[in-house]
């Protein structure tokens, strides 16, 4: 061990991180307060879905694919359906495509609200957490009334959607998003002007434009670094070919930028839903797709709430796929996190990890602080508390904020 190494403290975080998409270990090396190195290890949620897909029929696979992630389930099933539809050469009715877009945007709204809440929770701003999750409930109610379930709504099927979209559903949706739009304005105002929040988020978890390109960041992380990469714009699919989508970017490249991007994206989603409901064509909602899928291979991508979502399907002409590969957006953003953590302080670790939206980051990741012979055991909650207290000492007290 060299002289400089003696001053360093290594902190392994993880691996269990409940509610996170992909539970991970973070081995963080500290020099005083500063993080000098971070190594990530993932794979704790590896279940072997892709192998399972190979021994089940396509329609069974649709339900497995939907359960890759409970939060962006619609994005995954859309990508898989698009692949099958392209392989069979089926043309999906436009009405179904519009319904898919509406559900996808509602999903984006609930996912971003979820993120906004948990990010605020990580920095100790629990008031906002409760407000955003209250708003989120209304979106889940819409999902339940249209799809029949709050999560994993199963709207998609090969060749279209499974439920007719009636007048009551659309008027309910309009009513809810009008309300939400008002709330979003308020959140935007807080995010932009509230000095306490701004000073807590600004300059944290920097990922510059070049680094974001280099590490292949996607979704809001890339958009906040000024990369206008959105599949809805870059390669419009389904009804996005007809619906105008404004590309949201920001050049702040930090957690603050990611917050702003997400709130603006929500406002954009509200506009898209309004447009889609207004311009939705009539007609069928689904066409029949044969059980046997012609041989071929196809690569589809959609914009999930967290970024680009790639599905690869190879068919060998039977009713079971030869190979299915799902690439979720978080998978692409993990590389960036490793880099983002490096320049920051220990107190910024929770919010930096939360900022890429690895879903919910909260309880019981056992953290062992190992300095020399002393071994301390800390959990995620304590780390979060540590970060809140650290900033309090710096004069930034989020808990005093009122909404």
């Amino acid at each position, binding site marked *: 061990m060299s002289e400089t190494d003696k001053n360093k403290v290594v902190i392994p975080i993880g691996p269990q991180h409940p*509610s996170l998409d992909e539970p991970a270990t973070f081995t963080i090396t500290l020099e005083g307060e500063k993080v000098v190195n971070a190594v990530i290890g993932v794979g704790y949620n590896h279940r072997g879905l892709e192998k399972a897909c190979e021994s089940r029929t396509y329609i069974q696979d649709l339900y497995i694919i939907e359960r890759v992630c409970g939060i962006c389930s619609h994005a995954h099933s859309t990508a898989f359906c698009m692949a099958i539809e392209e392989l069979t050469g089926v043309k999906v009715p436009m009405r179904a495509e519009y319904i898919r877009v509406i559900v996808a945007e509602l999903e984006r709204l609930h996912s971003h609200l979820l993120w906004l809440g948990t990010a605020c929770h990580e920095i100790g701003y629990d008031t906002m957490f409760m407000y955003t*999750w209250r708003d989120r409930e209304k979106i889940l109610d819409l999902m339940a009334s249209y799809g029949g379930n709050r999560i994993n709504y199963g709207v998609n099927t090969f060749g279209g959607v499974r439920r007719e979209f009636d007048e009551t559903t659309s008027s309910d949706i309009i009513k809810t998003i009008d309300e939400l739009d008002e709330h979003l304005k308020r959140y935007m105002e807080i995010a932009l002007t509230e000095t306490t929040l701004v000073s807590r988020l600004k300059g944290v978890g920097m990922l510059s434009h070049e680094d974001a390109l280099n590490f292949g960041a996607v979704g809001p992380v890339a958009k906040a670094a000024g990369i206008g990469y959105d599949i809805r714009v870059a390669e419009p699919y389904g009804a996005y070919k007809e619906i105008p989508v404004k590309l949201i970017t920001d050049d702040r490249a930090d957690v603050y930028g990611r917050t702003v991007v997400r709130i603006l994206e929500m406002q954009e989603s509200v506009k898209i839903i309004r447009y889609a409901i207004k311009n939705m064509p009539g007609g069928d909602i689904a066409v029949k797709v044969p059980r046997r899928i012609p041989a071929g291979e196809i690569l589809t991508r959609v914009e999930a709430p967290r970024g680009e979502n790639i599905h690869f399907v190879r068919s060998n002409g039977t009713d079971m796929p030869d190979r299915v590969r799902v690439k979720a957006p978080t998978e692409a953003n993990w590389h960036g996190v490793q880099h983002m953590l490096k320049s920051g302080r220990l107190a910024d670790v929770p919010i930096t990890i939360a900022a890429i939206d690895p879903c919910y980051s909260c309880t019981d990741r056992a953290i062992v602080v190992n300095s020399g012979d002393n071994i301390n055991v800390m959990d995620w909650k304590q780390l979060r508390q540590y970060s809140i207290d650290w900033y309090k000492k710096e004069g930034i007290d989020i808990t005093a904020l009122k909404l």
Partner: protein
Amino acid sequence: MDLIKKAIDWGTSKSPWILHFNAGACNGCDIEVVDSLTPRFDLERVGVLKHGTPRQADILVCTGAVTLQTRDRLIQIYDQMAEPKFVIAVGTCACTGGIFDGCYCVTGGIDTVIPVDVYLPGCAVRPEAIISAVEKLLSSLKDDKGGAK
């Protein structure tokens, strides 16, 4: 002895602290567990508090089919919890392995690893069901008059 048990049961039934553990779920049930603690459903109003460390928790709320990687950690967390402890398996995957049963990295339901007190099927489980499960578990500790058994 009987009195001590009575006192513990009485205490547990009033304000149980829950520990949430994702053993390999798709995140649907996890979000619903958190949902049940936020304003709409608000389990906290009946004294249920989500807690971070296993040592202080009374109820382990476990979601998802157990993957090979989390199997040992689930046992470890269960062992760290103090008696009396209860386990709620939330979601179809947690009950039987569900849609993931037979995958090469999945061992099956929670009960293949640790004993389970309440099975709660659903994909995803609704927060109302989670509240009902907690309520049923707590009422099993009480006698008819609402006191400890």
